C-alpha cells in the first residue's frame, strides 16, 4: 500500500448561501486557517471561504514548506514562534498526518559579516523565545555531513546559526486538514467561485459579489495571495504591496537522509529534504513585479550552480519539476494583518516569501480579531497603518532566502 496516499481527510462541499457572518476570500492556508480557528476557538461557524480555483492552489500549494521562527525583530520572533508551536501540535489536534518533521535549520555564514549576523540572530531569537545558537564549523559538519565546508573552494563555511525547531510539513495536507476541520464544524468552502466585487453599504463592506451571486457578510476577510491589490482596490484601498514571482524546484529522491534545512544568504538558496526523500530547493524572488506563473531556466540554472558549492552530492540528482508562485512583497519584509480602516473589511497579506510558516498563527490571530473585535497583541505591530505611523517592521532576518 502506498503510504503517501491520503486516506483519512474528508472534504465536504455544500452549495453557497446568500449570507454568512464571515466571508473569507481565498482558500489558501491563511484563509482556511482563519475559518478553522474561528470555528474551533470561537465557535463561529457561519463562515464561507470563497476560492476562485481549487483549495490550496495558490502559494499554499507551491511553497517550500519551511517552518521556522529565527527572524530578526522581536515582534516577528514572537509571532513565528507561536506558529512553530501551533504547527507542532497540529497533527495531534486535527488527528491527521501532515508529514510534520522537526529537523532544525542551519543558516550558513561565509564571511565575518555573516558570522556576526548569525550570532546576532541567535541572541535575538533566544531573547524572544525561539531557540537558536551559533555553531562552529565542526558542529555544522556534524549536523549536515553532506556539506562541502569549503563551499566549492570559494564560499567556506565559517559557522552557522542553528535553530533546532526548524521544521517542514506537507503543504497540501496542512491546507486540507484546516479545511476539513472547518468544514466538519459547519463552515462552507466554495471552490471555482471567484469574488469579483465587494458590496458596499455606504462606507462599510457588507458582502461580496461572486460568480454564484451576491453574498452578504458581517465581515469580509481578504486572504488572497497574488491578487490582493485587486481586492483592496474594490474597497478603495491602495496597498504597500508589490507582487513578484518566486520559484522552486524538486529533485528525485535521494536515498540518504539529509538532516536539517540548510540556508545560505550569501549563496542565495536553501534546501531541505521532503518526506519522500526528494531535495526541495528555493531561492530569492524574481526581480520584476509579475503575475505570470511561468518558470524560468535561469532560476533552476543559478540555484543548481550555487547549491553545488555547498551540496556537491546533488550533482547526480535529477531535477524532477520546477514551478512558480506569486508573492505579495511588503516594504519591510513583514506581513500585514488586521483591520484596513474600511469597516467590515479585514486583510491578511504581505506574506511575501514567509507565508507558509505563519499559517496557524496567522489564522489564529485573525480569527481572534474577527471574533472579539480587538486587535491581538501578537499581531498589533503588523497592522496596515504602521507605514503611516512610521512603525515599519523592517526585518533584516526576514530578507534573503525564505
Amino acid at each position, binding site marked *: 500500500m502506498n503510504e503517501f496516499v491520503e486516506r483519512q481527510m474528508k472534504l465536504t462541499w455544500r452549495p453557497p448561501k446568500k449570507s454568512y457572518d464571515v466571508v473569507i476570500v481565498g482558500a489558501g492556508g491563511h484563509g482556511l486557517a482563519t475559518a478553522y480557528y474561528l470555528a474551533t476557538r470561537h465557535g463561529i461557524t457561519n463562515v464561507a471561504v470563497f476560492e476562485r480555483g481549487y483549495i490550496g492552489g495558490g502559494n499554499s500549494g507551491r511553497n517550500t514548506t519551511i517552518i521556522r521562527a529565527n527572524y530578526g525583530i522581536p515582534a516577528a520572533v514572537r509571532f513565528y514562534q507561536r506558529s512553530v508551536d501551533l504547527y507542532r501540535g497540529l497533527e495531534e489536534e486535527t488527528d491527521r498526518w501532515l508529514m510534520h518533521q522537526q529537523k532544525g535549520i542551519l543558516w550558513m555564514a561565509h564571511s565575518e559579516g555573516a558570522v556576526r549576523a548569525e550570532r546576532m540572530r541567535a541572541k535575538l531569537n533566544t531573547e524572544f523565545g525561539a531557540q537558536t545558537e551559533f555553531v562552529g564549523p565542526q558542529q555544522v559538519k556534524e549536523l549536515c555531513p553532506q556539506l562541502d565546508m569549503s563551499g566549492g573552494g570559494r564560499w567556506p563555511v565559517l559557522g552557522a546559526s542553528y535553530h533546532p525547531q526548524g521544521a517542514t510539513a506537507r503543504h497540501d495536507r496542512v491546507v486540507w486538514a484546516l479545511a476539513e476541520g472547518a468544514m466538519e464544524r459547519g463552515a462552507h468552502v466554495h471552490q471555482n467561485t471567484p469574488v469579483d466585487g465587494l458590496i458596499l453599504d455606504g462606507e462599510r463592506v457588507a458582502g461580496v459579489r461572486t460568480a454564484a451571486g451576491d453574498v452578504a457578510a458581517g465581515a469580509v476577510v481578504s486572504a488572497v495571495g497574488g491578487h490582493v491589490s485587486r481586492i483592496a482596490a474594490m474597497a478603495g484601498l491602495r496597498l504597500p504591496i508589490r507582487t513578484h514571482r518566486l520559484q522552486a524546484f524538486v529533485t528525485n529522491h535521494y536515498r540518504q537522509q539529509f538532516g536539517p534545512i540548510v540556508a545560505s544568504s550569501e549563496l542565495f538558496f536553501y534546501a531541505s529534504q521532503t518526506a519522500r526523500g526528494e531535495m526541495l530547493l528555493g531561492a530569492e524572488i524574481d526581480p*520584476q513585479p509579475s503575475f505570470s506563473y511561468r518558470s524560468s531556466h535561469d532560476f533552476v540554472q543559478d540555484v543548481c550552480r550555487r547549491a553545488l558549492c555547498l551540496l556537491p552530492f546533488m550533482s547526480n540528482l535529477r531535477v524532477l519539476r520546477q514551478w512558480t508562485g506569486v508573492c505579495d512583497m511588503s516594504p519591510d519584509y513583514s506581513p500585514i494583518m488586521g483591520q484596513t480602516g474600511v469597516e467590515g473589511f479585514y486583510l491578511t497579506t504581505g506574506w511575501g516569501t514567509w507565508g507558509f510558516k505563519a499559517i496557524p498563527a496567522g489564522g489564529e490571530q485573525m480569527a481572534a480579531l474577527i471574533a472579539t473585535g480587538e486587535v491581538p497583541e501578537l499581531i498589533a505591530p503588523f497592522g496596515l497603518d504602521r507605514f503611516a505611523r512610521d512603525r515599519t517592521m523592517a526585518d533584516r532576518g526576514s530578507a534573503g532566502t525564505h
Partner: protein
Amino acid sequence: MSLRIPCPTCGDRSVHEFVHGEIRCVPDHLTDPDERDLDFAFHHDNEEGVVTERWFHAQGCRRWLEILRDTTTDRILEAEES
C-alpha cells in the same frame, strides 16, 4: 534566460543584467501633502496588465531605459531610452 530586456544601446539581454525601477504615480484624488507623500513612499499600483517601468543596465551600458511590459505574461511591448 528568462525575461529578455531590450536595451536600446546594447540589445536584448537577460533581466538579470538589470535592476528594476518602478515609476510611481500618486493618484490625483489625494490632496493632503502627507497623504500624498505616504502614497508616493509606500503604495504601489501593482498593476495586472501593461505597465511602464524602468530598468538600469548594470552589466552593460549602465544607463536607464524605459519599457512597457504586460505583468500578467511578462511580454515586453516596446523599448525606448528614458
